[in-house]
Structure formats: structure tokens, C-alpha cells
């Protein structure tokens, strides 16, 4: 099919393939009008629709049926119709709803950014900075869980989890057998391995990369350093298990951590194996390509980056 659908978001028009979601259409346009997404992850099938941060208003359904949609729609799970018109930043209703969602995500969040390893690359931190209010109206005890180690490489800090289900999809789609899942329901739901099993699988480390917050962190990197003091560098190696294309995070001459390559929306498109992630932490293990090319910076790192390492704008 060569036919394309026309869509207008906040007054900016573009044409997309049928089947494209509103969110991906917005990403094709780029810039501020792209709705934030906490649970959608383009390379994980079935993800999205849960966090509700990406809600937008469909003010015109399509050329054929111009009626507006009655409710705000999750842009990550709503496909574009020809002639659709969408409001994101231009709709006060959307802004208000998003503020609400951010508040909901934060009421049970420990707000422990100062001691959280994810700080500086946390999607929730960025989101609340951009859309949140200054003070909380929540005056009750926050939900708390014990920290648990799932395996020797990953620590789960459930208090920080936003239940985006991404890590569950990773385990479902990347590993042979999923041994963790969502247990319980409502606000008592938690990520857990049934009987505290260790997650031990060649691709389990990707759960860390997809986690938008500091709920799943790399124990081999824990407290070693702040992300914004480390320098991301792209590198690759010949790997028989995965693509071998990674980001190395340097402090001086030391590789402190290895992750998948994230795009400007914090998404990894090529997942890496645990050997690359945990066992190859010397420069000589890798062929260095150069500074990581990511356009978008988190609220914290934006101020700290050495301008030499944030040069290229990569529009794939």
C-alpha cells in the first residue's frame, strides 16, 4: 500500500503509513508536540496504553467521520485515520489530564531521587519536571516494599516502580522463560518473582534498560557514580548472542557500565545480552565508535554535559 494517511497534530501536518499510531506520527514530526510516553516501548509488542501520560485529544476523527472522539485517547495505542486532527499541547484538557496522571504516578513514589541510581536518566524525573506541580497534595503514608535482589545482577526497588509492564514484556519476548510478573492487583500490585527466584537468563539485563524509573537497577553499577558524570560512548563487538552494539559509560578511563543504545525517547531498539552487559567492561573488549549520538537530554544531564560529547543530532 502506497496510500498514506494525513494527520495534523497541534496544527502541524504530516503523512504516515496506515497503521501508525498517533504517538509515532508525532515522533516523525518531532519536537515539543511529541506526547511523553512512560509505558509504551516501540520494540515491545503489546506495550503501552497503561500509564496514560500520552493522552491526547482527537478533535477530528477522520476525513470520513469527522466527529471528535469523546474521550482523551492514549496516543501510543490509537492508530491514525486519514484526515485525523489531534491536539496535544494546544489542548488545556490534555494538559490538565496529564498533570493529573503525573500526580498519580508520584503519590506513591518515594521521591528518593538523591539516592536513586536512575536519577539523571529517569523518565519520571523528566516528566514531573516538565508537567508536574511543585507540591504534593498527598498526605498519607506511601506504599512501601522491601528491596529485593533478583539474581546477583539486578536489584528491584518496587517503591519506585510505575507498573509500566515493560520488564514483563521483555521477559516474555526476549527470554526463554519468564519467571517474574505482576502479582496482586490495584495499588497493591507488585513486580515479583514467584518465590523470590533469581532471574537468570542471557537477556534479563534488558529489563534494566527498559525500566523508565529506578525500580530495576544494575547492581554492578549501583552507587558507583552519577550518570551525568559519566560519558556515554558507542561501541561494538562481535557477539554470538546479540547485536553487540552498546553504549559504554565511562568515568575517566574506566567503563562503569554497559547498556543498550537508547534513542531520544529513551528506547532501546537492539537488545543486548548479559555477556556484553556485565562481562565486557574493559575498553579493549570493544571497538569504539565515538560519543553517543542522542539528541534529547534529561533535565539533569542537560546542565552538566560536556559539550564535546553531545554533538550530533541523529534523526533516524
Amino acid at each position, binding site marked *: 500500500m502506497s496510500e498514506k494517511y494525513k494527520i495534523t497534530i497541534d496544527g502541524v501536518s504530516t503523512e504516515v503509513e496506515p497503521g501508525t499510531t498517533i504517538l509515532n506520527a508525532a515522533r516523525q514530526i518531532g519536537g515539543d508536540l511529541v506526547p511523553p510516553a512512560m509505558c509504551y516501548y516501540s520494540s515491545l509488542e503489546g506495550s*503501552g*496504553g*497503561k*500509564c*496514560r*501520560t500520552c*493522552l491526547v485529544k482527537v478533535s477530528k476523527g477522520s476525513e470520513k467521520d469527522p466527529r471528535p472522539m469523546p*474521550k*482523551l485517547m*492514549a496516543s501510543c*495505542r490509537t492508530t491514525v485515520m486519514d484526515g485525523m486532527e489531534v491536539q496535544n499541547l494546544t489542548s488545556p484538557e490534555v494538559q*490538565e*489530564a496529564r498533570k*493529573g*496522571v503525573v*500526580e*498519580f*504516578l508520584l*503519590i*506513591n513514589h518515594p521521591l528518593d531521587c538523591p539516592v536513586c541510581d536512575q536519577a539523571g536518566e529517569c523518565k519520571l524525573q523528566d516528566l514531573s519536571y516538565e508537567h508536574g506541580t511543585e507540591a504534593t*497534595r*498527598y498526605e*498519607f503514608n506511601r506504599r512501601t516494599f522491601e528491596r529485593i535482589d533478583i539474581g546477583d545482577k539486578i536489584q528491584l526497588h518496587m517503591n519506585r516502580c*510505575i*507498573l509500566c*509492564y515493560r520488564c514483563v514484556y521483555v521477559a516474555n519476548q526476549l527470554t526463554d522463560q519468564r519467571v517474574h*510478573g*505482576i502479582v*496482586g*492487583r*490495584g*495499588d*497493591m*500490585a507488585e513486580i515479583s518473582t514467584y518465590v523470590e527466584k533469581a532471574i537468570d537468563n542471557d537477556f534479563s539485563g534488558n529489563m534494566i534498560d527498559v525500566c523508565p524509573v529506578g525500580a530495576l537497577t544494575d547492581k554492578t553499577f549501583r552507587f558507583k557514580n552519577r550518570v551525568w558524570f559519566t560519558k556515554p560512548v558507542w561501541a561494538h563487538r562481535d557477539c554470538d548472542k546479540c547485536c553487540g552494539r552498546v553504549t559504554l559509560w565511562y568515568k575517566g578511563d574506566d567503563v562503569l557500565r554497559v547498556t543498550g543504545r537508547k534513542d531520544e525517547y529513551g528506547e532501546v531498539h537492539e537488545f543486548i545480552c548479559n555477556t556484553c552487559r556485565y562481562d565486557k567492561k574493559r575498553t579493549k573488549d570493544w571497538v569504539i565508535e565515538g560519543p553517543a549520538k542522542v539528541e534529547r537530554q534529561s533535565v539533569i544531564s542537560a546542565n552538566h554535559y560536556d559539550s564535546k560529547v553531545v554533538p550530533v543530532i541523529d534523526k533516524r
Partner: protein
Amino acid sequence: MEVYRKQGGYAAVEKALKTMTPDEVLEEVKKSGLRGRGGAGFPTGLKWSFLAKPEGVPRYLVCNADESEPGTFKDRDLMVRNPHSLIEGMIVSSFALGANTSYIYVRGELFYVIRILEKAISEAREKGFLGKNILGSGYDLELYVQPGGGAYICGEETALIESLEGKRGNPRIKPPFPAVSGVWGCPTVVNNVETIAATSWIVQHGGDEYAKIGIGRSTGTKLISACGNINKPGIYEIELGLPVEEFIYSDEYCGGIAGGKRLKAVVAGGSSVPVLPANLILKTMAGESRLMSYESLAEGGFVSGTMLGSGGFIVMDEDACIVRNTWNFTRFYHHESCGQCSPCREGTGWMEKVLHRIEYGHGKMSDIDLLVDVAAKIEGNTICPLGDAAAWPVGSAIRHFRDEFEWHVREPRLSQERNYGLAGYADPLPVQAAEA
């Protein structure tokens, strides 16, 4: 079985399978104007006609017998007292939809109902109404009873389908709708017990006959489970269009408010629908008397109206505490939220805590507006309607009974000792009506 047969039971099966085509059955159901009895009131014929029919893909009919809405207990009784009416309805509906496998998803706690249904199914099978080549018509149907896990959320049709497939009962993100991709990814119709049971009557007597019962676009009869402070709680089959006042006060139905007290408020369609004060449930804003029908109860929108919902009619007298009742409902939704989407997962718990605080005399004036705001931010922003169902009772309680919330905050001591009583703005009409 014998009794049911003697009273003309399974005649609809014979009529449909032997003399009608599936499309003719569908046509009768469309003509009848039957609307879903599960809560949303969506026209059943229309819903059936949306069912996708790709070649070579099986289709399914699922009966939603998960009934767990607080205040609603009609389907259980229907299944216990007259299981064959449901099974007969399942057969003709499945025939109309071209489904060869159908499920009845029963709430897990109802073991005895499951046993009754299974017995009735085996009786029907013995008589040749189920299985291969039913009554020599060439139509096959297998009917299964599937016990659920006893979670309210599994009554939501897509969560029900997930649960039926053996997964965690999380509602799916729509679209795709079940009519296109339901059980095992195949086109599926989900209908309430009462809806399905009504179809056999429609087949037997014709859609036009059914449409004569009721009022306007609310055709037919409806089971109402009445409870609360009334003289005669129970399940009543009413013709749609019955005045609410008659339903509450006539001896044929609820028999008036228990203990000669006065009516304070009514939740007309199960815990999810907005609560209305006495004056607004009896008469609309325009001063017309309110009827038990989809349209009349909804008159005035959410400002002054409510919904027929699933027919759980909860009556509260002058001694009922609206704050406590709202807290109780919210506690239910908090407990039953599946936790997938942020507004419902976090918002229901937050509302419950604030309501608890107000009810127990630790509330603040600002809490009331906070509740309104939180409810508004849940409403419409969630994956499934449970979010709305949790928000509506809170929004409506504060809209109509704000005084009572404020009184709880102002008089923390007093509110622990006694209830607020009738609100000053509640119409005194109920008393006069009772005497008349």
C-alpha cells in the same frame, strides 16, 4: 427440566433451529429493541450485527455471569431458579451468531450456581438440545461453564476474555473490540445473563411483541434487585417505564421505606452509577416524575440524573450516612482495581484514604474539593470503565450532598455520634407520597 419443558421451555430452540435462519433470529432481536442488561444498555441486535465474520474463523458467544457489582444480585437468582432459560437463550443466541462453542463465565464464589448450571446443561444435552446436530438441524453447539476467580474486574468484557483464556484478568486496550478480536483472538460477543435469557422469549413471541412491552427505547422487562432500607428487599421483574415512586412505595414492589422512615437517597443502578437525593430520584429537574427506564433515569445528565445501570437499586433512608456509604463504595473500587493504569490504580486508593479521613472526623475543608478534582482526573482517562465507575459515586455524592461532607469536617465529634439526617434541600415529598 420437566417443569421448564411443560411451560413451553425450549420451544424457542425448536422454532429457531427448525424454521428460522440465523439472520432472521438477529432481525427479531433487532426489532425487539432489547438492550444489554449488563450495565451499559447497548442495543443487543446492533452489537450482534457488529460481529466480524471472516471465513474459517470460529466465533464465540460468552455469557457474562460475573455479577459482582455491589447492589446487583439479579443474575444469580435467575440462574439458580431458572437455569434452563439461560441455556435456551444461549442456544438461540449462539445459533444467531454462528457460534459453535459458547461459554458461561460465572463468578468464582458461586459454586452452587456452577453446579446447577452444569446439571442443567447435561439435562439439555440428554434431550438433544446441545451437542452435535441439534434436533436434526445440522447445527452444533458445545456449552461450557467457566468459573472465574471472583474478581469484580473480570466482569469487564475484555478482562473476562483474558480470564477465560487463563490469563490475569486485566482489561484489554480497545480497539480492537471483542466483536473483531475476542476469545483466542476470534470474533466474540459478550452478553449479560439477563440479556441472553430474554432472547429466547423474543424468538418465541417475536421482536415486535417484545417491543410492545416497556416504554420508548427502553423495551421489555428488567430485573431489579432492590435492597437497603426498604420493607421488601428482593428481586423484582418490572416493565420498563414503571414510575420510580411506585417502585419504592407500592406494596407490589419495595413496599415503602422500612420503619416508616423517610427516603434520603437512591443509588439506582448498582454502585457505579451516580447517587441521587430523594427529590431528584422521584422527579426530574423539569418536574416530571422519573420512570424506571434507560432514558428517564438518565434525564438531566450527570448534573441531576443517573443511570439504570445493572439494576441494583439501593435505597437509603434518613439515617444513612452518605459519606460512609461513599467511602465504602470507594473502598470496593480501590480493592478491585486491576492496577494497570495509573489514574485508577493510584486515584482510587487516594480517594479512599481521604474519604476515610473525613468519615472518621479528621477531614479538612479542602479535602472535599480535592476529592472532586481527583475523581475528575480519573474519569475518562482510564483503560476500562472501572475508573469512571469509581469516580462517579464520589463526584455525585459531593455534588448532591456537599453539606453533609462539610458537616463531617466542621463537626468531627458530632459526626462520630450521630448521622447528618435528611438534608435540608431534600424534598419532603416522599412523606406525602407514602401517605397518599
